[in-house]
C-alpha cells in the first residue's frame, strides 16, 4: 500500500482550525452578549465581536474532508490568506479577524449541526460552501439575521437578503457564452447542450435557453445524463450526428472529461463549452500542476475546451489586484498551487472585509448592523480577480459578467483567458426570482 497522501495544505488547515477554534471559543463567551454596547465607545456589538480585544470571529462552514474537500480546502485557504494579510496590516480599523472553521463534509445535516455549534460565537459566516448545504441553513440564517458568505452560484441564493454571493450565477455564464459565439464567432453556429439531470443542470439549461432566445443560434441537440453514468457514447453521438459545433457541458469534472475523451477518440472535436464546475486542473495532470504526469484525456482537453467563469487568469499581471494577491499567497500560503477556488476564497474575504469596514464605520457590529452594511454596500472592486460586486436592497446577482478561458496544457492553472469579463444582452435582462420553498 502507498503512504497516506495528504496535501500539505490539509495539515495546515487542520492545525489552523484547531488553534483558531479554541481562540474563538474564548472570545465568543465574552463578546457574545448580543446587542449590548461594547467597550469601544459608541460602537454596538453583537455575537462574535469582542470589543476588549478588538476581535471579530467569523464562521467557516466548508467541506474540509470528503470528496468535495478538493474545493473546500483551497477556498478556505484563500480566505485565511486574505484575513491573515488584513490582520498583518493592522486589521480593519484595528479590528482583527479570527476564523472558526467547521468541516461540513458537504453534507446538509452536518452543515446544520456545525452552524448551530458556532452560531452564537461568530459575527457572521464568512463561508458556506455548496448549494444543498447552504440551502439547509437558509431558514436558520434568516431567523437569526446571520449574514452568509455563500460560496455557491445557484441562482436562487442571490435573491435572499442574508446571502452574500460573489461571482456570476452559472445560468448567466451560459447566456454570455452564447452572446460571444453569436457576435464574435458565427451567428449561424450550431449549438447543443449536455446537462446533468438535476437542479444544477436545469439551472445551466435555463441560461442556455435565455441565450438561445436572444441570439437565434441554431439549437440542434439537447441531451442529459444521470449521476453514475459511466458510458456517455450515446450523448456524444447525439451531438455529433446533429452536427453541433459548440457543445455546452453542464456536468461534474469526471463526466465532462469522459464526454470530451469519448468525442475525441471518435474523431468528433467541436468546441466544448464547460460551465465553471465542470472544470478541474486535475483533469489535466496527476497533481493538478503543469509539471505533473498528464492524464489520458489531457490531450483531448487541450485547446478544444472553453471554460466559463468569473475569475481572472492566475498570474495575469495586467489585473490590478494580481500582484498583491500573488504576494499574499506566497507569504501566507506558500505551498498553494495555482487554484481558482483559492482565488475565489481570497476574493470572497475581500468582499466581507468591505462589509465589516462599512459596519464599523456605521458603528454597528450587531447582526442587524452587519446585514444592513451588506445590503447597502454598493459597488466594491475585487481587484479585478473577479468582477466587482454590487449589493443593493433590490438584491439579485452580484455580477452578470463572464470571462472565457481556453484550456491550455502549458499555462499555469491550465486556463488561458481570451475574453475578459463582459456582459451580454441576454444576461442583462435575465430575471432572478426567489426559489419557492
Amino acid at each position, binding site marked *: 500500500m502507498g503512504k497516506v497522501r495528504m496535501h500539505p495544505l490539509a495539515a495546515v488547515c487542520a492545525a489552523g482550525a484547531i488553534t483558531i477554534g479554541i481562540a474563538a471559543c474564548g472570545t465568543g463567551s465574552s463578546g457574545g452578549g448580543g446587542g449590548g454596547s461594547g467597550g469601544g465607545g459608541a460602537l454596538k456589538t453583537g455575537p462574535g465581536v469582542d470589543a476588549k480585544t478588538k476581535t471579530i470571529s467569523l464562521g467557516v462552514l466548508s467541506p474540509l474532508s470528503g470528496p468535495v474537500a478538493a474545493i473546500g480546502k483551497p477556498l478556505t485557504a484563500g480566505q485565511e490568506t486574505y484575513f491573515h494579510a488584513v490582520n498583518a496590516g493592522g486589521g480593519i480599523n484595528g479590528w482583527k479577524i479570527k476564523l472558526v472553521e467547521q468541516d461540513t463534509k458537504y453534507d446538509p445535516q452536518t452543515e446544520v449541526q456545525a452552524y448551530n455549534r458556532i452560531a452564537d460565537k461568530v459575527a457572521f459566516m464568512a463561508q458556506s460552501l455548496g448549494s444543498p448545504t447552504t440551502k439547509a441553513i437558509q431558514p436558520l440564517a434568516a431567523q437569526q439575521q446571520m449574514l452568509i458568505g455563500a460560496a455557491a452560484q445557484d441562482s436562487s441564493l442571490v435573491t435572499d437578503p442574508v446571502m452574500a454571493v460573489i461571482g456570476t450565477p452559472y445560468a448567466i455564464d451560459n447566456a454570455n457564452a452564447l452572446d460571444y459565439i453569436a457576435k464574435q464567432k458565427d451567428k449561424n453556429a450550431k449549438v447543443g447542450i449536455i446537462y446533468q439531470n438535476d437542479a444544477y443542470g436545469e439551472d445551466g439549461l435555463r441560461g442556455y435557453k435565455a441565450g438561445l432566445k436572444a441570439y437565434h443560434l441554431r439549437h440542434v441537440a439537447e441531451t442529459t445524463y444521470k449521476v453514475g453514468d459511466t458510458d456517455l457514447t*450515446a450523448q456524444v453521438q447525439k451531438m455529433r450526428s446533429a452536427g453541433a459545433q459548440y457543445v455546452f457541458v453542464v456536468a461534474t469534472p469526471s463526466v465532462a472529461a469522459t464526454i470530451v475523451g469519448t468525442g475525441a477518440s471518435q474523431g468528433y472535436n467541436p468546441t466544448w463549452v464547460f460551465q465553471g464546475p465542470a472544470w478541474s486542473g486535475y483533469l489535466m495532470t496527476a497533481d493538478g500542476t503543469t509539471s505533473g504526469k498528464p492524464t489520458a*484525456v489531457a490531450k483531448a482537453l487541450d485547446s478544444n475546451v472553453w471554460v466559463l467563469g468569473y475569475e481572472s487568469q492566475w498570474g495575469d499581471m495586467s489585473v490590478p489586484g494580481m500582484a498583491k494577491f500573488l504576494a499574499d499567497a506566497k507569504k501566507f500560503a506558500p505551498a498553494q498551487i495555482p487554484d481558482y477556488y483559492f482565488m475565489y476564497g481570497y476574493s470572497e474575504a475581500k468582499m466581507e472585509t468591505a462589509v465589516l469596514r462599512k459596519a464599523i464605520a456605521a458603528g454597528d457590529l450587531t447582526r442587524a448592523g452587519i446585514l444592513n452594511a451588506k445590503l447597502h454596500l454598493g459597488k466594491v472592486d475585487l481587484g479585478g480577480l473577479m468582477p466587482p460586486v454590487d449589493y443593493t436592497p433590490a438584491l439579485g446577482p452580484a455580477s452578470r459578467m463572464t470571462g472565457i478561458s481556453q484550456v491550455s496544457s502549458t499555462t499555469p492553472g491550465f486556463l488561458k483567458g481570451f475574453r475578459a469579463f463582459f456582459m451580454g444582452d441576454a444576461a442583462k435582462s435575465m430575471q432572478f426570482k426567489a426559489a419557492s420553498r
Partner: protein
Amino acid sequence: MTAFFQLLFQGIALGCIYALVALGFTVVYRASKVINFAQGSLLLVGAYLVSVLATGLNLPFVLAVIAAIALLAAGCAIFQMMVLQRVLGQPVFVLVMITIGLSIVIDAAIPAIFGGNARILGDPWGASAVHVGGVTFNWVRIWTVLCTALILALYFVFDRFSRYGLAMRATAADEEAALAVGVPVRRVYALTWAIAGGVAVVGGLFLAGFPGSVNPSLGNVSLRAFPAIILGGLDSPPGAVVGGITIGIVEVMASGYAPGWLGSDFSAVAPYVVMILVLLCRPYGLFGTRPVERV
C-alpha cells in the same frame, strides 16, 4: 449504421464490466447465500491499488495488476476468515449487514486517504484506438472484452475441473452434506471471497480506463450491475455473464435510441424494465436454480 455498431461495441464493453461485478456477487452468493454489498467498493479498492502500484511505485503495469489482484484477493480472504467466519451460524442477514458496513468503511476511507481528486490509472492504452469502418475501438475497451473473456474462461475451467471448484459446487449444492463428506467448507468460503476480490481488481481497472478515471465514485457501478445479477440468476455464474452483457447493451442502446417521450434518462430505467420482464417469465432468472421443495 456506424452509430449502431459503435453503441453495440460500447454496450458490450460496459456489459463486460457488469459481468465481472456480477461474477463477484454470484461466486460469494452461490457458496454462502450472502449478497456481498461491498462488491462495488472492492472494485474501487482494486482501481486504487492498481493506480498506486503503477503510478506511485512505478511498477510495470502488468506486474501492478497481478500484484493488485494478489493483494486484494488475500485481503478479502483474510476479511472473510477474521470477520465473517466468527459470525457463521448467525442468520445470513447478519453477514449481509457486515458487508454493507464494509462498503461504508471503504467508501469513506478511500477519499480520506487519497482525497477526492481523480488519479491516473497508469495503464499503457490511454486514449489510443483503432478505427474500422467509422467505428472507434478504444484499445482499453478491446482489452476489457478480451480480459473478461479470459477471466470467465479461467473461472469456468477452475469451477469444472479443479478439486476446489468441485468443493465450491458441493458447498453450493448442500453445505451440510458437503461438510459431512469432508469438504473444507470454511476454506471454500475464504476462496470465494478471494475470487470476488480478484475479479474486482480487473473490473475496477477497466472501469477506470479511458475516458474514465480512478475516482471515489467508481463503486457506484455495483448498483447498475444489480439488474444483471437478478436477470441472470443470483446463484449462476454463466447467468452473471449473460446478464451483465445484456444489461450493458440495453443501457447504452436505450441511451442512444430511447424516444423523448420516455423521459430524459430512460437508459437508467431500461435495465430494470428488462429485469422485470425476465422475472415475469422466469422468477429465478435466466439461469437461476429453482429450489426443490417438499410440499
